[in-house]
């Protein structure tokens, strides 16, 4: 059905790229923001604006907090239908307690996993997750949303579509199509090196968009391939849950063998027993790392089979200076503090896997690479957005003549996913600063504002899109750019007014997490204003030429563009 290999790849690139490009735009943009998720958290929750802290004392800070934890209503609600009989009021049996922190975290993440009584799947676990102030042990207010790590970051990989993990599957398929688009894009453009140095900015929107699409696609190709690929590797267990379905029995066999070999109990003993001092075990682990010449902070502490005679404590070194998130695990018997096991050196396969996933998640310290990630992610956004523009520019003359609405719809969706997404983001940040801190469900309100603003931007993009159906330019691009700029400025000003942390203060005291967010917002505002003004000038020129000639300006150009396209292949 396709005449040759290149045409099949071109079809794949155009149509899968178009349909899934809207998803990929969201994935790339919020992935870029997630690089600084902890810093955005600081901006959104002023009570967490203090310096990063080391892992706090388990015995005096973490243990009392863990004992009070219970899963949130929403997490329990997701168990509906997975349990025989009613859901319990309180979850009593604790499978695990864990605390994780990195060199960028003032607050420590604590999570408790509970056994679900009468669950259809005996391994069913429900989690409680909190952020905790390590200086006092106080849990951050429950209604407040850590916008960076609890909203933008999950949006990046799950679109917040939790039903049957649908969002993970959509993002996963889009990542696969990203890889396919990169390969098919290279196949389509045989003269890739010549095109790489081609940018005909002054010719037409269509040429400019295509050149920029090729430039950003090629210059960041290794980056884009790596991130789409490693993203799939990170969630491979969700996309291909072989070890938990078809090979479940083999997995069980392995776990029993492993428990025998490592001495770390696979099951609870069923006998309650108190815990010895975990702080002493942590101190011992740190002494052992130091003796190996790799002194470091604790990144992850985990207690398995909490409250049972078989309980054990695992202490992992933070990967601040490594690609792997954590490593060098040392395990102790929780009741006595006796050393059970030191993790052996990583195998080759494990090293590769940790490298691939660790480089994607970047919990290690490297600020320059962190900014390069943002740059790479934004280049991906430019690549996708210019792909949309090229699609529209190439077809809108033809569609206008035939009375088709295709170009108009794609253009309106492009406005929604480019400027509309920015408007939603700005609206959320402004709402975060203007809603009272005492509001019970503040985070829920912020989510509502985000989705509502995005919805309104979409309606606006469609309503104003009539011009595209007449081969013109959608004024929504320009209007939404002004809104983005206004939103970004409002966010910066309201942060200064509600917290007193204005730029003069945050820069002079070197509090970069908040200063960085404010400066990024200002940069966004400046770029948006420049784009809006440029688009306004272009709109004026095109009305001027439309009145002086019988054909709209694009009409004559369109014909010559057709020739250019034909030679382009």
């Amino acid at each position: 059905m396709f005449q040759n290999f290149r045409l099949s790849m071109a079809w794949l690139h155009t149509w899968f790229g178009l349909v899934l490009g809207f998803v990929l735009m969201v994935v790339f943009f919020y992935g870029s923001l997630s690089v600084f998720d902890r810093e955005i958290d600081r901006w959104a929750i002023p009570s967490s604006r203090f310096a990063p802290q080391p892992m706090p004392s388990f015995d005096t800070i973490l243990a009392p907090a863990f004992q009070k934890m219970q899963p949130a209503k929403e997490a329990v609600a997701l168990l509906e239908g997975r349990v025989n009989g009613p859901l319990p009021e309180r979850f009593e049996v604790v499978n695990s307690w864990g605390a994780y922190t990195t060199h960028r975290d003032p607050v420590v993440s604590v999570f408790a996993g509970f056994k679900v009584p009468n669950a259809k799947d005996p391994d069913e676990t429900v989690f409680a997750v909190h952020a905790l102030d390590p200086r006092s042990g106080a849990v951050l207010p429950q209604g407040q949303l850590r916008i960076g790590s609890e909203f933008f970051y999950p949006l990046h990989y799950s679109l917040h579509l939790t039903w049957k993990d649908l969002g993970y599957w959509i993002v996963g398929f889009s990542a696969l199509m990203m890889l396919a688009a990169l390969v098919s894009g290279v196949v389509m453009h045989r003269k890739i090196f010549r095109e790489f140095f081609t940018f005909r900015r002054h010719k037409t929107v269509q040429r400019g968009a295509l050149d920029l699409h090729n430039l950003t696609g090629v210059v960041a190709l290794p980056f884009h391939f790596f991130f789409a690929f490693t993203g799939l590797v990170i969630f491979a267990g969700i996309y291909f849950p072989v070890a938990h379905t078809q090979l479940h029995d083999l997995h069980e066999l392995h776990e029993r063998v492993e428990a025998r070999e490592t001495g770390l109990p696979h099951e609870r003993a069923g006998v309650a027993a108190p815990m010895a001092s975990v702080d002493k075990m942590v101190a011992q682990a740190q002494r052992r790392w130091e003796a190996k010449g790799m002194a470091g902070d604790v990144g992850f502490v985990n207690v398995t089979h909490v409250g049972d005679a078989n309980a054990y404590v695992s202490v992992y070194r933070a990967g601040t200076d490594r690609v792997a998130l954590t490593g060098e695990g040392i395990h102790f018997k929780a009741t006595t503090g006796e050393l059970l096991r030191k993790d052996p050196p990583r195998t080759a396969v494990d090293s590769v896997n940790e490298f691939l996933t660790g480089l994607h998640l970047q919990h290690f310290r490297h600020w320059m690479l962190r900014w390069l990630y943002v740059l790479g992610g934004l280049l991906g956004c430019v690549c996708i957005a210019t792909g949309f523009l090229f699609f529209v520019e190439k077809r809108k003359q033809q569609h206008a003549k035939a009375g088709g609405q295709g170009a108009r719809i794609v253009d309106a969706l492009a406005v929604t996913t480019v400027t509309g997404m920015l408007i939603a983001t700005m609206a959320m940040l402004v709402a975060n600063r203007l809603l009272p801190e005492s509001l019970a469900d503040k985070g829920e309100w912020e989510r509502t504002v985000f989705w509502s603003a995005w919805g309104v931007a979409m309606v606006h993009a469609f309503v104003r899109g009539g011009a595209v159906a007449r081969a013109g330019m959608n004024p929504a691009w320009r209007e939404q750019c002004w809104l983005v700029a206004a939103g970004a400025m409002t966010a910066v000003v309201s942060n200064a007014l509600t917290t007193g942390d204005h730029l003069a203060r945050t820069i002079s005291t070197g509090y970069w997490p908040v200063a960085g967010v404010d400066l990024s917002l200002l940069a966004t505002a400046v770029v948006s204003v420049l784009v809006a003004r440029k688009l306004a000038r272009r709109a004026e020129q095109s009305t001027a030429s439309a009145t002086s000639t019988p054909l709209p300006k694009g009409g004559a150009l369109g014909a010559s563009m057709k020739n250019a396209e034909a030679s382009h292949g």
Partner: protein
Amino acid sequence: MTDTATTAPPVSAGAAGAGRRSARGLPWALLSRIGAAVLGGYAFCWGFIALAHSGLYALGMPFHDGEHLSAILGVLLYLVVFLWTFAARRTGVTWAVLLAGGGVMTGAAALIQRALLG
């Protein structure tokens, strides 16, 4: 780039009816090809991952190493078979290869698991 969806003619009738179009919208051949790439590709990669995982474990590789290695290779394989399905001349062949291959590998993985569980 050529917009094949609107300008490329359906292949001549000689291509085993591959160019048959439904009255409106996407041609059936195209839907079948997309289905083969997405679903057939998934089944094939599932089989590969299950076979590689159980096989590597049987050969003595640690369980989670086998899991990670087969997943890493499986994801790359998905990309390859997806592109191959689009580039292949006949969709029927891709369906047959992907489903039969996936089925055989999944079955082989089940046999390896049974042997290991004893």
